[in-house]
């Protein structure tokens, strides 16, 4: 009898623990979460404009929390966003700790931020920036021309794209509140470059720049002019920002768009919690330990859409692409590149990675639809061609017929790996032998950059760029090595043309040439990114990253 009782208890405990474990997330409302708020039920393809106005929660009044917790998925190597191009660093520091002379609005247009105004000469060779006066750094110093000159010239040195645009020109001080740069050739899109480049043109005190690490070039202190300052960075745990009380807002109260505008810094403390495991992120959102997370697994989006305690925001994602190695091997042959493009069914590729059509868009333009100035459908008939017979014919006509096409992919990126598997299948179905080379991220980057004899193409993605010439895959000195003379001449022409109409016309021709003939890359599609946040949030924007500067989380 006693034996049976013990066994029964053990069995019940075991069964209960397994049932509890497998019980799913449930729908019970976390105690710490605010009730109410709107719930998005349908995906919208358009970019959401960050809302700084009185939202539902704000209208209801009440207290908002003193601190919010946003999840980031990795520990940044540095917050020196002028040097590092890591997105995770910019997610934390851009617009919060650091500000720029100009930043982009939700129309991808540069708008003055630390500059009061910008004068551009008619021939676009000279830019004069009149600085806002009385702007304080977090160390109490006032931002002046010396700081801006040091910051901007450091940015040029760090960003090859900027060097390509300005040549040997560098920023100079005119007086304490004015700086200028004079280029040898016209430079029509310098502000776009400053506002939207991967290396962010963060303005820091000259003293901080002078004290940078001589080996790595990274600054040792993160001091900017933004509404938040770095308070604590517990490696691999969290980055804590606190409100900068001497912050001087600019613009009009209530007017905030994408990365620019009037910043309140309502919430005194913002934590960026570093959580690497996606399951932990989901569980942490459900229990209320984290208030917002972005780029969570697409499979979980519906669960949060159906939970009234959360709202789901979306923004433009990235362009997923196959970049050909045009330096060595098979892909130096135009016919091979055309053959690969012709063989691919982009819908299947994107579906494999993102699981549902609502999570991606298919169109041939290299620029996003939302970038209306530059968007064009010219040459789109070659996008998503899905013509294995033409692919096979082009492959047989090439001088590399019979050779195996090698695709390099990072195993740490499940989306890219899924795409690569489908690409391999489709190429082989078209009669083009294909091999996948799969490595961890660091090895992938190393081989991609330094061993072009090992592969013919690699898979990656790119965030929207303000102007086409900023697309890195068209650069001759980034992996892929796009050295096509017509493309390079076209890019120079766009950068130097003082007439935007002419520049756009040049881009339209160039895109047609690239899709039809040169094929430096194959675009698979454009993704949509999601942010899940508590429904009590008001003013938490999402434009490439969560924008916390006007966020309030009502209790």
């Amino acid at each position, binding site marked *: 009898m006693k*034996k049976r009782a*013990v*066994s029964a208890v*053990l*069995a019940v405990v*075991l069964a209960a*623990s*397994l049932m*509890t*474990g*497998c019980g*799913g*997330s*449930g729908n019970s409302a976390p*105690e710490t979460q605010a009730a109410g708020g709107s719930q998005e039920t349908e995906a919208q393809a358009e970019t959401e404009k960050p809302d700084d106005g009185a939202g539902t929660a704000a209208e209801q009044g009440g207290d908002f929390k003193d601190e919010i917790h946003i999840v980031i998925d990795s*520990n940044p*190597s*540095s917050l020196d966003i002028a*040097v*590092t*191009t*890591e997105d995770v660093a910019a997610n934390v520091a851009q617009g919060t700790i650091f500000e720029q002379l100009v930043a982009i609005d939700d129309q991808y247009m540069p708008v003055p931020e630390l500059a009061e105004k910008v004068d551009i000469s008619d021939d676009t060779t000279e830019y004069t920036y009149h600085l806002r006066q009385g702007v304080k750094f977090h160390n109490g110093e006032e931002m002046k021309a010396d700081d801006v000159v040091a910051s901007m010239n450091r940015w040029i040195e760090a960003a*090859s794209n900027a060097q390509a645009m300005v040549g040997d020109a560098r920023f100079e001080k005119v007086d304490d509140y004015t700086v200028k740069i004079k280029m040898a050739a016209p430079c029509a899109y310098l502000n776009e470059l400053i506002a939207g480049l*991967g290396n962010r043109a963060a303005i820091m005190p000259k003293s901080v720049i002078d004290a940078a690490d*001589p*080996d*790595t*070039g990274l600054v040792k202190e993160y001091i900017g002019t933004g509404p938040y300052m770095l308070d604590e960075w*517990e*490696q*691999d*745990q969290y980055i804590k920002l606190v409100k900068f009380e001497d912050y001087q807002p600019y613009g009009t109260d209530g007017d905030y768009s994408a990365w620019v505008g009037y910043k309140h810094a309502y919430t005194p403390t913002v934590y960026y*919690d*570093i*959580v*690497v*495991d996606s*399951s*932990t992120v989901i*569980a*942490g959102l*459900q*229990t209320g*330990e984290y208030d917002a997370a972005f780029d969570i697994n697409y499979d979980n989006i519906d669960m949060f859409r159906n939970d009234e305690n959360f709202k789901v925001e979306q923004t433009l994602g990235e362009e997923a692409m196959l970049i050909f190695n045009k330096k060595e091997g098979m892909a130096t042959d135009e016919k091979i590149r055309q053959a690969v493009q012709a063989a691919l069914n982009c819908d299947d590729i994107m579906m494999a990675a993102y699981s549902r059509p609502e999570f991606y868009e298919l169109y041939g333009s290299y620029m996003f639809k939302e970038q209306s100035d530059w968007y064009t459908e010219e040459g789109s008939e070659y996008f998503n061609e899905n013509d294995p017979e033409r692919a096979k014919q082009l492959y047989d006509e090439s001088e590399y017929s019979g050779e195996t096409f090698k695709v390099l992919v990072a195993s*740490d990126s499940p989306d890219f790996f899924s795409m690569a598997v489908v690409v391999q299948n489709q190429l082989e179905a078209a009669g083009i032998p294909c091999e996948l080379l799969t*490595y*961890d991220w*660091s*090895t992938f*980057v*190393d*081989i991609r*950059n*330094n*061993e072009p004899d090992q592969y013919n193409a690699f898979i990656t993605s790119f965030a929207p760029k303000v102007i086409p010439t900023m697309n*890195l895959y068209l*650069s001759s*000195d*980034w*992996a892929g090595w796009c050295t096509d003379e017509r493309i390079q001449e076209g890019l120079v022409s766009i950068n130097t043309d003082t007439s935007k109409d002419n520049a756009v016309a040049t881009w339209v021709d160039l895109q047609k040439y690239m899709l039809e003939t040169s094929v430096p890359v194959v675009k698979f599609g454009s993704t949509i990114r999601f942010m899940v946040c508590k429904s009590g949030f008001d003013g938490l924007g999402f434009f490439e990253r969560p924008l916390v500067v006007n966020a309030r989380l009502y209790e």
Partner: protein
Amino acid sequence: MKKYIIRRLLALIPTLFVVSIVIFSIIHMTPGDPAAMILGDKASVEDIEALREAMGLNDPLPVQYINWVTGVFHGDLGQSVFIDEPMTQILKEYMAPTFSLTIYAMIISTVLAIPLGVIAAKKRGSFTDQGISFLSMIGISMPSFLLGLLLILGFAVQLRWFPVGGYKTIAKDGLIAHIRYLTLPALALGFMEAALIIRLTRSSVLEVLASDYVKMAKAKGVSEFALIMKHAFKNALIPILTVLGQTFMALLAGAAIVESVFNIPGIGRLTVNSVNRRDYEVIQAVVLMVSLINVVMCLAVDLLYGLVDPRVRLED
């Protein structure tokens, strides 16, 4: 005894020397470098190369190795590229959560496993024995990350008894918060080792119970409790002790996965991150330290043999 200890400690030097060469070679021969990680995915090849040069990563490997070893002999374990703190401080900060977690998991596994193993042996063939064996079978079969996720779902998401993840220090947040944050990870980490110890304890105790001297003691009328605790268990302890030493190292190694699931900034996560971003000197320092702990742990177990079993004499 003293000579034995000194000799074992001296044997550390060639061991660590070999470990240092092996780990240095493996890491530096693996493609990838910290310069590319610092500058990010979108940096140009030229910019990365310039930073490599500035950081001395283009120096010949023997030169880099000698520079590092010379530093180690001077007490300088190197400098992390990404964490702006002395290496000893980094190791201290990251080792603390891992040690806490490992010790907690060790306590859970031994406190749970040894009594259950003894009970299973005592009740051999019974329903209780079968239940305990079934439990240990599940423990062995279930990976720690899966158990971790199930524990999170059950006790953090559903019941809200414990946090989903994170870490709190005793100094800053108090002992209760410290234990609260480590309980689920320690359970996830310790369950598999507990299962192993249950099985080993059961078989060891059974073996001793079948020996002649136990039969003799039983014939002389020694009580069942005294028989188990004084005679059987004590003699069964040697193989258990060996496994406990190995268990500690296994838990230390397994902590990397559990630390990722529960978001604990321990040495496992530091190692994984450092490997991912090729922070060479951190990896080297961590591996050296873990090797040192391993050797010291083995020595401690050897010394404990002598205490538990007087028949074991460590040679002088």
